[in-house]
């Protein structure tokens, strides 16, 4: 199928379901049914079975017509759950889950990280044990966005503690309405509660809702995480947008000669990163971002911090004021909020240290860190 057929279908969609007058769920449902949700998925599951590179053509038409973006509404569902469910779920799960995921009737969250398993995700301790024809999961997850509104969760749990850590994990879809699930908001240094802690206490898992084989959870999770890194690393392509745009606007209203060299350095770096994102995207075409995808995330995170530090320096005493820590979205437009928020950038979604390791080991081919836990049964590895 060539690009113009996709474009034609998209034009038909927006003509028949004008985004301005169509409820979001209805529009997204129609888009799913037209095979324009993710064009590389099979027909009937929101796709047309064509090359993923054609997705952009459909997106452009819908965006131009003002159509809703499911990524904004259901980021974990759209960015992570959909590809994982498609790759590792049964046909019954495809049928049950993909459409309401895409229409955002059912929001998803991801239950991976734990208080004791951050950078060392594979060391996680949430246990799932067999219970009749299903499983029961117990443990604590953290850094879960959307947990309070999610219908389903992607859950990574340990099903065999007696093998090395990567080998004892299994991947499930969890029903967030299960009585064994408790969600508590987790407040951050900005005062906002973007994330949650989630406690599982004998939460019921259906074996038919397992994604991939028992013990193959790590491999399945890699599908999910590779999609996450791309999603986080994918940047805008407008010069002077994002954090550097905030700095430029502030600079133009109150330049400070003593800080000029710093803003030049940061602008140049931001623009170089923008061009790098475009170059890498062009070079990989339809392919996955791969380990080089960590570069944009790493540089962008550290750049954000440096840029907002510059903003605070430019603000002077005005930067010692801050509207408050009550989580009011109105505060999110302030430079001080963005400054505070940027502090998490080098931690969330892979710390700067982890990302440097990925670049060094998987792009440059340098040897891995010494792994003292590699061949040890998980049960015997020190944790804390």
């Amino acid at each position, binding site marked *: 199928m060539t690009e113009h057929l996709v474009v034609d279908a998209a034009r038909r969609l927006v003509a028949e379901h004008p985004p301005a007058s169509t409820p979001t769920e209805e529009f997204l449902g129609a888009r799913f049914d037209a095979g324009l949700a993710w064009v590389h998925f099979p027909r009937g599951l929101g796709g047309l079975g064509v090359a993923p590179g054609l997705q952009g053509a459909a997106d452009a038409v819908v965006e131009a017509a003002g159509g809703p973006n499911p990524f904004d509404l259901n980021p974990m569902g759209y960015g992570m759950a959909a590809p994982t469910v498609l790759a590792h779920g049964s046909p019954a799960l495809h049928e049950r889950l993909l459409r309401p995921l895409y229409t955002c009737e059912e929001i998803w969250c991801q239950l991976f990280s734990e208080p004791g398993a951050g950078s060392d995700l594979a*060391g996680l301790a949430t246990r799932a044990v067999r219970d009749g024809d299903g499983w029961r999961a117990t443990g604590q997850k953290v850094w879960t966005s959307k947990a309070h509104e999610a219908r389903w969760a992607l859950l990574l749990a340990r099903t065999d503690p007696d093998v090395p850590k990567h080998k004892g994990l299994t991947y499930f879809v969890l029903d967030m309405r299960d009585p064994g699930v408790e969600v508590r908001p987790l*407040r951050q240094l900005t005062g906002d509660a973007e994330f949650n802690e989630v406690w599982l206490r004998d939460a019921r898992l259906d074996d038919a809702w397992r994604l991939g084989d028992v013990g193959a959870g790590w491999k399945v999770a890699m599908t999910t995480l590779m999609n996450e890194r791309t999603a986080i690393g994918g940047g805008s392509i407008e010069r002077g947008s994002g954090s550097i745009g905030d700095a430029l606007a502030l600079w133009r209203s109150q330049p400070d000669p003593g800080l000029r060299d710093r803003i030049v350095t940061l602008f140049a770096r931001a623009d170089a990163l923008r061009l790098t994102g475009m170059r890498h995207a062009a070079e990989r075409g339809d392919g996955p971002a791969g380990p080089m995808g960590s570069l944009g995330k790493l540089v962008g995170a550290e750049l954000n911090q440096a840029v907002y530090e510059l903003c605070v320096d430019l603000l*002077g005493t005005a930067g*010692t*004021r801050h509207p408050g820590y009550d989580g009011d979205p109105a505060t999110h437009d302030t430079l001080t909020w963005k400054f505070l928020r940027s*502090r998490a950038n080098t*931690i969330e979604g892979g710390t700067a240290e982890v990302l440097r390791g990925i670049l060094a080991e998987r792009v440059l081919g340098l040897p891995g*860190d010494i792994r003292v*836990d590699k061949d040890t049964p998980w049960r015997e590895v020190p944790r804390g």
Partner: protein
Amino acid sequence: MADLLRETVRAAAEDGADWRALGEQLGVLGLAVPERWGGSGAGLGEAAVVAEELGAVLASVPFVSTVVAARLLVESGDDAACADLLPGLCDGSRTFAVASLPTGVDRPAGTAEGVVDGPGATDLLVLAGDGLFHVDGAAAEVVPVPTLDLTRPQADITFAETPARRLGPAAPATDVAVTLLAAELVGVARTMLDTAVTYARERVQFGRPIGSFQAVKHRCADMLVELELARSVAEHAARTHDHGGDDPALASSLAHVVATDAARRVTGDAIQVLGGVGITWEHPAHRYYKRAVTSAALWGGRAHRDRLAKLAIDGNDGRSSHAG
């Protein structure tokens, strides 16, 4: 003496740093006040020890303003005002804030913005034109401003027909303030380095303490470097004020530049070492970070960089310049 003072304040600070106790029981609010007005006749070196310990627990108390106010009162030459005000300053029954009015205003009138420790101050010392004035805190309009650092309140203070008593000529308050600020930031950085190191020793990932990974370990080494540099300039500034040996203006600006950079870096790095825990509201690291960040902008802020350049780098004679 300094060690005993440090231990005493540290114990009190860790217990919660009650202001009246610091004044009445420990007698550390009037350290740099002559004995005849209720103080102990010590110097900024001793006050800096207190500032460091209060910084180490991030005590939300107006200590820096208090010492600056005491210095201004003593140097005003107005013995009657000293006798009126200093005993209350020393025992903690009065709390002071120091407000600077914009150039061109020669008496308490108009608004002084962002007065540190303004909310709740019983007494205000106002620098206006060439004069130093005393104003009753209750007589001015004190509007607290929302601050990034919740532990150091500020207020916009408006004077309108407010009764004021002229104490003497205006004197620069900034050098004393940043000298104590630097000491406070040494405490801030010290606590965050300790916190990060303890965490790095105890937190296990990949079957080993994260402090055994060079990325974490070397970051902690860099934090130690920053702390040590900050301590040196902070102690040097206090010593210079008390005993000479250097230009107090230069030593003060140097202390501000080095200590604020160090504290920002150490507290930011501590959050990085702590990882996810460090960005939670619950963990105290963000409070220390906010203290460090805002301190860089207060009492002259980046103007100290400019003054340092004028005094020590450009090579012309800039001894009369002052920051903030």
